[in-house]
């Protein structure tokens, strides 16, 4: 299962979470390489001193999106703290500047600009919705910043200034649909989503795949405004159309309403008639929905908190120690956690914080210690990753029932799906 490594990423490979006691060694290792580079490293025009390097964290901590983005902030802070505990990056401690995007897209643009122009941060970990990324993207391109974007998203984008640590749509969707067709014999699909770009693009890809590749049928496609809370009508339609699979990309508070109403309408999701397959409900959302209301649905994502590998067990333990026992970790939270580590690896490979050098160094960077297992940066700035199918259980966790054999290549501009 381990793929050959391209680069020498000794530190990364050490298994940073296995034993924090190993840190002194790492610290010394890091320090020895500093003096020779100091002048060069400090003269990139970024906020780098002999001891510190500044990065930005840009998520919504207020407004409607705070619900979703809180986990990402926690993950990024944890990763930074762990990196610092290991001696930092190129011997420099990471200092983060946190800004609030306030669930407002122009604010994301404004704050990105502030982080890049005024604070001169070496990297920004942030954004969550596509809209916030689209708003901030021109700023990153104009001022040549580096953004690590954690959310699974619709693709159709490939910026030299962004590393996409979540999955793009084809990675997340196709495997799930194939699995439903192969394992469950699904022939009729019903597509349901919130009304904005990610669900619409995802469903477009899903429809093409269902119709052209699987040779099956889409019996309904439906969108509701963001924040909609009444789903009885669509539930009736689902009952009537009797699809084999309902493929769901409803987001935010609508989720809670949808699953509660689904359950109340007498649909036992565990019976898999129809089977509910979501790409939008992570463990974070289940917290609000309530495990008993969503028990029996399937999710197609790259990460679940219950993944049994060692990396993940250490990660979950560290996360809970840092943020409390009650906390859950979803797909995006894990992807956000990768950001600082991928950046660290790239900086160390480049031997510099310089944005251009980091960018050049990024493709091929791999993390063998990622909680999701092994990831590698593709030259299109997305990650190679596996896709897994999880079955929701009453305790609010997913049980992994399937895992793709190979790493799936990211393909943000999928041929034949546009």
């Amino acid at each position, binding site marked *: 299962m381990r793929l050959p490594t391209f680069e020498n990423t000794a530190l990364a490979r050490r298994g940073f979470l296995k034993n924090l006691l190993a840190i002194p060694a790492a610290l010394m290792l890091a320090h020895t390489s500093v003096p020779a580079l100091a002048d060069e490293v400090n003269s990139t025009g970024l906020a780098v001193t002999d001891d510190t390097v500044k990065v930005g964290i840009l998520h919504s*901590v*207020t*407004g*409607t999106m*705070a*619900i979703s983005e*809180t986990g990402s902030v926690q993950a990024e802070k944890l990763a930074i703290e762990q990196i610092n505990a290991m001696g930092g990056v190129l011997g420099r401690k990471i200092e983060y500047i946190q800004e609030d995007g306030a669930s407002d897209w122009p604010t994301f643009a404004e704050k990105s600009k502030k982080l890049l122009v005024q604070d001169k941060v070496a990297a920004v970990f942030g954004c969550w919705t596509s809209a916030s990324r689209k708003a901030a993207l021109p700023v990153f391109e104009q001022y040549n910043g580096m953004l690590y974007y954690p959310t699974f998203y619709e693709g159709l984008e490939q910026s030299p200034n962004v590393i996409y640590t979540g999955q793009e749509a084809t990675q997340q969707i196709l495997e799930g649909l194939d699995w439903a067709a192969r394992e469950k014999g699904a022939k009729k699909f019903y597509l349901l989503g919130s*009304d904005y770009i990610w669900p619409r693009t995802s469903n477009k890809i899903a429809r093409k795949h269902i119709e052209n590749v699987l040779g099956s049928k889409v019996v309904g496609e*439906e*969108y*509701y*405004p963001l*924040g*909609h*809370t*009444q789903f*009885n*009508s*669509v*539930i*009736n*339609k689902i*009952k*009537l159309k009797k699809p084999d699979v309902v493929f769901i990309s409803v987001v935010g*508070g*609508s*989720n*809670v*309403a949808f699953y*509660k*109403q689904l*359950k*109340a*309408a*007498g649909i036992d999701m565990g019976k898999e008639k129809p089977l509910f397959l979501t790409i939008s409900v992570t463990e*974070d*959302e*289940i*917290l*609000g*929905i*309530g*495990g*008993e*209301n969503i028990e029996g649905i399937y999710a197609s994502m790259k990460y679940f908190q219950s993944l049994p590998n060692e990396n993940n067990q250490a990660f979950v333990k560290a996360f809970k120690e840092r943020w409390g026992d009650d906390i859950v970790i979803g797909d995006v939270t894990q992807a956000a956690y990768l950001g600082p580590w991928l950046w660290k690896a790239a900086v160390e490979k480049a031997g510099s914080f310089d944005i251009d050098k980091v960018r050049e160094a990024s493709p091929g960077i791999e993390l063998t210690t990622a909680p999701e297992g092994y990831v590698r940066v593709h030259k299109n700035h997305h990650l190679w990753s596996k896709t897994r199918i999880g079955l929701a259980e009453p305790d609010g966790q997913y049980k992994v029932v399937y895992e793709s054999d190979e790493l799936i290549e990211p393909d943000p501009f999928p041929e034949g799906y546009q």
Partner: protein
Amino acid sequence: MFAEYSASELTSIFAMQGFAGLILFSVFVLMALGLAIIFGQMGVINMAHGEFMILGAYVTYIISNLFADYLPSIYGSYFFLAMIVAFFVTAALGAFVEWAMIRHLYHRPLDTLLATWGLSLILQQLYRTVFGAREVGVTLPDWLMGSYPVTDMVEVPVNGLFVMGLTIVITVGVALMMQKSRLGKQTRAVVQNRPMAAAVGINTEKVDRMTFALGCGIAGIAGSAFTMIGSTGPTSGQLYIVDTFLVVVFGGASSLLGTVASAFTISQAQSTMEFFLSGSMAKVLTLLFVVGILMLRPQGLFTLKVRH
């Protein structure tokens, strides 16, 4: 449009859609009733109405947790206690808000709108600080889950029935209260002629406070009921505010009957359109329909013609 369905399926469709419409109707009535009292009787525009509802939901969440921890044996009955507590907690907050803020603004109705919007921001942030930014899941007692299968296709959700029953009880209760009780009579007296009411010995300040508290308390009960069908998060309340106001205005602000009729009209229109159109377009058309009617009939569905 209907060709693809059999006759029995069509019957089922209409039965199910009718029921879905009734649930939506109940939701609208619950949302709007408190607001109709506050806005219709007092002329105060409470933009924090949604936040009062969410307070009721959070109270329900706390009580359900307390029951789970200390009284697991009678967990199933927590919901009734939760609704009662939700009513009193939100009513108490309402009374406080009336005392601290609203009573100074009675002669400036548009300003109550701004001040209560400020209040809603503060409450949202308060919820976020206390309960966290994430949504909380309120576990429903088992008896509220599930459904009664009527036929193969038609199933009646228990919590839908519960919400409808609750709506009827509260609506009838409020109507009786406004008609028969001392507070109701005093409220109507104050609405019709404040100086005269004061002159005959009604404590108008107290009546105002009680009315506002009552409206907020009903919002609290609504919030408690909504934990069954919706989400509970710091900003969940905002989702309801526009719809709620439209229901009240559409009904003709001063009439409870109007509110009920308006909730019925809007819910049926929306649920019918939702079935034939996509969800977003149904919503747009419903709103357009309401705005259009309001343009033709600004006073709303039910109003008394009054002499100048």
